[in-house]
């Protein structure tokens, strides 16, 4: 069985006045079917660029280099007119800002119905029929020829709204996005994902703009999607605690590189990289009952002026001479727990 997503040596560059600036620098990441993986980092760490590169929605002034295999096919070199074939039922994305991610002039039901039509179109494609991709759990849409499949899209849309626990889904479906609250809109976005039944969902800070109670609902819905449909999820967030609640594995990004990667338990309770320790130390209230907030000194580096050697060395209290000259690489310290640091 192939992995849903395999990113290898991915670089994302942005065009600036003088040169190309790299926001993602040689990232390797693989996501298995039904796996939830968290990507954590400060703003400017390249996590959003990574997310956009995976779904091939980078802005026009950016380019991607390397390999992004989705469902066994490299999409980096794919002409953008064919990219839609891999999105939709292949992969989709939820954005940070629920207030602007729905079309203001279309009814909710119409926007959701589009997802249904898109999924049905996609399931006619050869790549979704082939056995190279398999869905481990949940009803397989390829073979369900029952009444569900032939139901009018709008009916499925209402059903999906009910699934994401929107009260009175019929009335909500007839509304326009501006008539919904932020939490409701984000749940509409998740309902869209339910309708697409994607193999891969890229969620870029989906809960950041929501209040805490809504956040919890949204997280449990995302997990339900992964459980029911076997969707792999890349959960991008700056909040390592939120990621800890949903992800099976966590990748910590700093200055465009993955500096630590491992099972959630291991990364949260036994952080190896000084940056990861700093992230956990700076959680207010004290994770695990510790008393003081420790902050990471300094600020993330400007991607135009990266330090030599380990990119974290100017802010690292353990920095040695070696850190200032020699690049780091990921090393496996425990089983499946990788870190890129000269301390080890």
């Amino acid at each position, binding site marked *: 069985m192939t992995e849903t997503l395999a990113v290898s040596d991915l670089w994302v560059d942005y065009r600036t006045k003088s040169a190309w600036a790299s926001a993602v620098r040689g990232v390797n990441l693989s996501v298995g079917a039904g796996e939830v993986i968290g990507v954590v980092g400060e703003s400017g760490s390249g996590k959003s660029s990574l997310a956009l590169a995976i*779904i091939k*929605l980078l*802005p026009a002034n950016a380019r991607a280099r390397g390999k992004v295999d989705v469902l066994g096919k490299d999409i980096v070199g794919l002409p*953008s*007119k064919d*990219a*839609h*074939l*891999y*999105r*939709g*039922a*292949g*992969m*989709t*994305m939820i*954005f940070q*800002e629920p207030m*602007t*991610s*729905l*079309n*203001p*002039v*279309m009814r909710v039901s119409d926007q959701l119905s*589009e*997802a249904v039509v*898109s*999924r049905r*179109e*996609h399931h006619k494609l050869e790549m979704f029929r082939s056995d190279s991709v398999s869905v481990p759990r949940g009803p397989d849409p390829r073979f369900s020829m029952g009444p569900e499949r032939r139901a009018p899209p709008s009916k499925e849309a209402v059903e999906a709204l009910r699934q994401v626990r929107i009260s009175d889904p019929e009335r909500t479906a007839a509304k*326009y996005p*501006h008539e919904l609250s932020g939490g409701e809109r984000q749940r509409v*976005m998740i309902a*869209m994902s339910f309708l*697409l039944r994607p193999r891969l969902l890229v969620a870029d800070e989906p809960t950041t703009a929501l209040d805490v109670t809504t956040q919890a609902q949204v997280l449990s819905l995302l997990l339900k999607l992964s459980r029911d449909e076997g969707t792999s999820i890349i959960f991008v967030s700056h909040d390592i605690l939120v990621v800890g609640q949903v992800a099976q594995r966590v990748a910590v990004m700093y200055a465009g590189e993955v500096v630590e990667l491992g099972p959630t338990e291991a990364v949260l309770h036994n952080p190896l990289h000084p940056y990861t320790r700093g992230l956990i130390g700076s959680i207010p209230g004290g994770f695990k009952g510790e008393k003081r907030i420790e902050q990471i000194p300094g600020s993330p580096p400007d991607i135009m002026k990266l330090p030599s050697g380990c990119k974290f060395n100017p802010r690292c209290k353990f920095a040695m001479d070696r850190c200032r000259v020699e690049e780091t690489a990921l090393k496996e310290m425990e089983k499946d727990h990788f870190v890129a640091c000269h301390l080890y």
Partner: protein
Amino acid sequence: MGLATYVARRVLFGFFVIIGELLIIFYLTNIAAPNPAVIWAGPESTQAQVQLVAQTYHLYSPWYVQFYYYIMNVFTGNWGTSPLYQQPVLSLIEEYLPVTLELTLIAFVIKIGLETVLGVVSAMRPNGAADSLIKVTYTTVRSAPPFLVALGLLLVFAYGTHTFPSSQPINPILGATVPPFQFYNPLAGKVTGFWLVDNMPILNALLVGDWAAFSSAVAHAVLPVVTLVLFGFGGIVRLVKVSMLEVLDQDYIRTARAKGLRENAVIFKHALRNSLLPAFTLMGVVFAGLVAGSLVVETVFSYYGLGYYVAQSLITFDTPSLIGSLILITVVIILSNLVVDIGYGFLDPRTRVGY
């Protein structure tokens, strides 16, 4: 507030606009020709005739008293008689207004359609070959004054190549023989003419099936329509281009792409409608501009519509015609703005709350 209340409020508001506008025009015409009795009575009239005209129109009273009499008469359907044409103003307007309405509506539809398409094309590849060509075109056309464009078109296509006729809305011989369109009116219970429509040269010829008249009317309309389309050309192109580029950067466009929609569906179903919103608010202004532009265009092409009529009445001190047709133009513009504002609510659900 419901739609009906909204419309009622706007109509009431429009009523006050017309009263205010009337005051200004009345005052201005009074300055231009304080006592037009001599002009109206004609060059060969006797003293008694001038006296009679002056008394009939209360011309010896101050302008605000004249205004009072005028207002009272306007609401009873007496808009005065044109001293130039010796016909009631209202029936002259009935004759001239449809010609202009037809001309400006055709120009409006072509203009909006063409400019929107060009705007979308420029937005697809900003600074590409098509975009640059469009930019050069509208900069050139926009810099030329409309009367000059009209004269240029006349010179090339009428006097030079004889492709299109130079004046009049229709060949006068064909125009005299084409019958007015009639239909069975269930309200009146008999066959009647279609008010306004039977004075539109193109539509009337089409409805009665007179193909010679129809093709003549179309050929006569080509040059005036082209001039009107080029009048202020490029504003909507730029607006559509800019808002299209802005919309294509929005999150919901990324959502539409993430859904797996084809690029065409993304652009035409999601981006276009949103990027037309700013342009749509301008439609009322554009239409008003075309009606105003018809004054120049109809004069140059001797296209006998309301614009021509207004220009003539200005020159000949035909005050009743001038005031009457300006009221009508105001009504048309107020109505078109109302239609645009209501239409905007249908295009953009977010603004419907405001009704």
